[in-house]
């Protein structure tokens, strides 16, 4: 115990500034960024989204070709101007015609560039949103078990990062058509103008190709390193912001500063390396351009001197040379874009291909609002993994207007019952009936409208209190909302908020306490006005004052409805008309409080443990109670 008191710290430790057990920020290795360059399967899937806009795409490609043709034509026109339009002594009759040709060329150029960019830009945006919409809509229907397994953050990066890289891909792929045409165009025009000179000039081209081939993988590695160290440093900064209270409470500022310094320094280093790689190409391209021009001047100039070549041709060559490294540069960049897009496309199709387990039967009926409100389980067998059933041959019936409490230790299958009523999952055997109909014969939409559900973790959306209570019942009036809030006892604290019902809730209702959020979700269920209420009581401790409000609200909420409550609090359980006790997926007993107490089985034992809530009971205590003979 005296050892525990040594509050003075060994100061030498502070000098060794990087302690063994400290890190800042976290970093997950990012997902595969680059995929195959070309994957026909993915291209086909993406094409399905582009198809509706194919006319625009064809138009864009045509415009790109026209644009490129004009890029090629302009130096040629200049050549004609020099050789034929302005020879001293020719009288200059040709010049006006040549100028007219130039005017036509630049007008076409203008129109083509306008068309190309508008079409490509807008189609890419439209496709981007179409893909995102398709994914989002699909995610509304995929099975909940898949959603449970998948982090929201991961899905969001599909909906954003991956979709964006598809947009980028779309834009560049049309442009690379232009680049390739330009490259070949320049080569063809040069060789036609003067084969030998053309060949000589083009000799610089393979050099650049080879240099870039060596450069690209290294450069890309350095760019990725820079990108990665950057996100590491940013992650550490975000952590400092989110965890600032813990940091200050634990006095970790100095240590963290040192560690953060390491990360930012690493980031500086990789960025400088990346900058070196990026810039090293500049003198190479410039030197090659200079070399090509020098060659044209020496060789071409000599031939002009010998009158074997028109001076205009030489000028045209000089103009082409200034252009012809551009397509190579952008083509190599587009190569990376393609690879990235293929990896993204792969992930997008994965999401789009997640099977929808539960869909309406072709002849599904609408569950009408005047059904009786009964719920029945008939020999239900169900498991998330069919080999390990969570519910084994469970049968019970909840009569219209009755409130039934589902009770049992963790893992007994209570939550699964609740999900099955709503047909979040399909049973493996037996059937679940609502209002006398098998839920598989009903439309999911009408089923949802007749069953209101309150989850353990109240989930609120960003928006006003009013919108949150009204939720999808957009036709509910402000009065309806207020009446519901009054009924559940939420009105008072809502009115104390700065703008009452129009107060905007923070992220997930962050500015409300858990109990208050619970009450709002009660009000939401009340507005939904369904025949059946399914409720999963919150387990977390709520302060006693709010707890009291919640208990009262619950009574209001269940009035005139069929209620199925996963109950944790004894108060709730005792109020229920009937209690169903589940254990290990089997129904072990049912009846009201008095009956079950007389039964002296699981319920009585749990109750006798004297905990204020069944969920407080540690597992070993339950095990103990179960093995001990009843008292």
């Amino acid at each position, binding site marked *: *115990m005296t050892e*525990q008191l040594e*509050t003075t*710290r060994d100061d030498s430790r502070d000098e060794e500034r990087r*302690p063994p*057990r400290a*890190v800042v920020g*976290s970093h997950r290795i990012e997902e595969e960024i680059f995929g195959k360059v070309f994957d026909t399967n993915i291209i086909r899937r993406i094409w399905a989204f582009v198809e509706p806009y194919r006319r625009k795409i064809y138009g864009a490609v045509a415009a790109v070709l026209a644009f490129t043709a004009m890029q090629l034509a302009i130096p040629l026109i200049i050549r004609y*101007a020099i050789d034929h*339009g*302005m020879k001293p002594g020719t009288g200059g009759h040709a010049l006006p015609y040549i100028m007219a040709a130039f005017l036509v060329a*630049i007008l076409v*150029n*203008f129109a083509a560039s*306008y068309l190309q*960019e508008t079409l490509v*830009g807008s189609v890419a945006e439209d496709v981007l*949103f179409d893909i995102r919409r398709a994914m989002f809509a699909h995610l*509304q*229907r995929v099975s909940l078990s898949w959603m449970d397994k998948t982090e*929201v953050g991961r899905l*969001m990066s599909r909906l954003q990062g991956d979709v964006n890289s598809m947009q980028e891909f779309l834009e560049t792929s049309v442009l690379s058509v232009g680049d390739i045409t330009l490259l070949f165009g320049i080569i063809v025009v040069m060789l036609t103008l003067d084969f030998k000179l053309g060949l000589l000039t083009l000799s610089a081209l393979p050099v650049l190709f080879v240099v870039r081939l060596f450069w690209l993988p290294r450069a890309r590695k350095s760019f990725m390193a820079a990108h990665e160290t950057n996100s590491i*440093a940013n992650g550490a*900064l975000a952590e*400092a*912001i989110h965890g600032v*209270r*813990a940091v*200050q*409470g634990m006095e970790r*500022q100095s240590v963290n*500063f040192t560690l953060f310094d390491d990360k*930012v*320094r690493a980031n*500086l280093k990789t960025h400088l390396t990346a*900058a070196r790689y990026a810039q090293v190409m500049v003198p190479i391209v*410039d*030197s090659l351009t*200079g070399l090509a*021009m020098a060659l044209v001047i020496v060789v071409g*100039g000599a031939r002009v001197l010998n*009158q074997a070549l028109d*001076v205009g041709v030489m*000028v045209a060559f000089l103009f082409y040379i200034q252009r012809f490294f551009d397509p190579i540069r952008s083509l190599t960049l587009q190569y990376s874009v393609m690879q990235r897009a293929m990896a993204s496309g792969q992930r997008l199709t994965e999401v789009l291909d997640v099977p929808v387990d539960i869909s309406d039967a072709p002849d599904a009926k609408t569950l009408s609002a005047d059904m009786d409100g009964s719920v029945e389980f008939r020999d239900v067998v169900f498991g998330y993994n069919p080999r390990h059933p969570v519910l084994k041959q469970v049968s019970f019936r909840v009569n219209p207007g009755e409130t039934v409490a589902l009770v049992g230790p963790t893992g007994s299958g209570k939550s699964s019952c609740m999900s099955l009523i*709503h047909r979040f999952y399909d049973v493996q055997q037996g059937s679940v009936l609502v209002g006398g109909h098998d839920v598989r014969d009903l439309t999911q*939409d009408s089923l949802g409208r007749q069953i209101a*559900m309150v*989850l353990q973790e109240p*989930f609120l*959306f960003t928006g006003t209190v009013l919108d949150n209570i009204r*939720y*999808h019942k957009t036709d509910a009036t402000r009065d309806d909302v207020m009446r519901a809030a009054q009924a559940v006892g939420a009105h008072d604290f809502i009115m104390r908020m700065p703008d009452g019902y129009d107060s905007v809730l*923070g992220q*997930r209702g962050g*500015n409300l306490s858990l109990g208050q959020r619970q009450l709002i979700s009660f009000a939401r269920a009340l507005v939904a006005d369904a025949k059946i209420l399914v409720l999963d009581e919150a387990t977390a401790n709520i302060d006693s004052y709010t*707890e009291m409000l919640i208990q009262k609200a619950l009574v209001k909420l269940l009035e005139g409805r069929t209620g199925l409550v996963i109950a944790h609090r004894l*108060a709730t359980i005792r109020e229920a008309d009937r209690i169903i006790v589940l254990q290990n997926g089997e129904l072990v007993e049912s009846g009201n409080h008095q009956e079950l107490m007389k039964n002296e089985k699981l319920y009585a034992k749990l109750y006798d443990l*004297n*905990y204020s809530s069944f*969920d407080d009971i540690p597992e070993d205590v339950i095990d103990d109670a179960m093995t001990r003979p009843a008292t």
Partner: protein
Amino acid sequence: MRAARPSASLALVKAAGWGKGFSILTRITVMAFRHPWQASLAIGATLVASAFQLAIPRLLGQAVDSTQGVLSGGSEGQAAQDALLTTALLLLGASVMRGLFTLVQNYFSEAVGHHLGYRLRLACYEKIQRLSFSFHDSMHSGDLITVGLLDLEGVRMYFSTALVRMVLLTVLIGMGAYLLLSTDLLLGLLALSFVPFVGWRSSVTQLRLRATWLELQERLSVLTRVMEENLGGIRVVRAFAAQEHELAKFETASQSAVELAHQRVGIRVANTSAMTFSFFVAMGLVLWVGGTKVMSGEMTVGTLTSFLTFMTILQMPVRQLGLMVNAFARASTCGARLFELLDLDIAIKDDAAAPELKVTEGTLRFENVRFAYPAADREDVLVDLTFEARRGETIGIVGPPGSGKSTLAHLIPRFYDVTGGRITLDGQDIRKVRLQSLRRSVAVVQQDSFLFTTTIENNIAYGDPWAKEAHIERASESAQLHNYVLGLPSGYDTVVGERGVSLSGGQRQRLSIARALMLRPAVMVFDDSTAAIDAGTEQRIRSAMRRYAADRITIVVAHRLSSLMNADRILFLEAGRIVESGTHAELLALGGRYKALYDLQVRPGDEALSA
């Protein structure tokens, strides 16, 4: 409970006035020149590179003229050959030099930016770490991240995209204009005619694009929120069969973003096409007028060629004028926000000569403590609070929501400063001692504890990263966490937190109790930090800690009475005042508010909760 959030001033800085903008840019410039040789190299290289750049058209013109000279029967063939060779070599040399100096220019201007970014990041990080709770209460963490990421980026890019580019453009356009105009005034004017138009269009467009970009970001963040909430709350969505409703929400948000995205494409396209067109029109005019001049012998083909080449060279930088203007605008708004953060005063900090806290007897005293959250017109949360706690004592604090329980807990480690009265530890006012020494003596187990994304071991040792393994395990045992951890496949090396294994609320709270135990504090405060732990486990934690309780003050804030029934003294808080105080038995006997609360929590008919 934390204070309501007053609108944060940082987020509200929009466009700064000209004077303010200028002073911000000056400040960034001064900071950039704190790397004097790199910055000077960047700017020096820019000047040299543009000089070589400007030499190229002349050389091309000369080359063309050399060939023409022979044709018109001027000089000798051999001399012309030599001249061509010389020109070619010069051209090659100029190209190589231009390339090399451009490399130097680009590399060092980026390097200056990265070094600047490095320093700013550290400064930003340190500031954020040190700013007190009241600041963080008032700031949305997302806004703070925006400042630390995006605004910092805008400032970092200033040197290379605004300043160096400005030098480059000034030299290129200025020198180019001089060379062209001095060669042929009329043709020079024609050749330069596109410059003002393109420069102006490009600037206007970039600024408009920036404005729409900001707006687009806003709309996209709405869309992001809609999607994120939908996916996070998918059970609610399904439970209410609200897919249609959600899709409609998505559609609205998506539509509003896509419309703006189209608008952006429109703005961009209209201008790039117009700019290219004006360039070609100018080129056509040069060709025409120049051609006529060549015909009349007033000008050589070489000069015309050099004019045309000049124009080609100028075209790119002139188009980038807009980017430069944009970079200036961005740096001044981003800088305004970033510097506002960096210049903030830290409300809670050490006095210059503050002594270390010396804990001797271990007595904590609240003397007429008054507290109100910093936002204006806030009422006092705590009023005239006076009590004393000695080493070995446990004080329980209870009361209705909003009575100031958590606030009280936050005052002891000086997360906030009292607005009246004082808090002392062994007679030393906690505001007069070194903050670090105070916080090492006071540990607060927070209500919602933040777990860092790292191993369980590192999380427990967060406050004492030098700790020995045995200590970590002992703390973990006391917090009833050890057995759970051993059951995990990777034990203490299991990564938890946002990106790791997710722990239940109770497990998180147990971990944060272990974390606090590691500090071996003289004062240990539990701020409602056992709410998610079941009663049985809580009892075991308490009995494990009883061993150390003799050496410290324990303060337990809770609403579950079983958590604090055994305290030496229980304070019942209401509206910031102590209304009842005494032991559990005394307060029950008093029959007041505490008794009422007790009755509420205990099942009717049950005599007492098992202690």
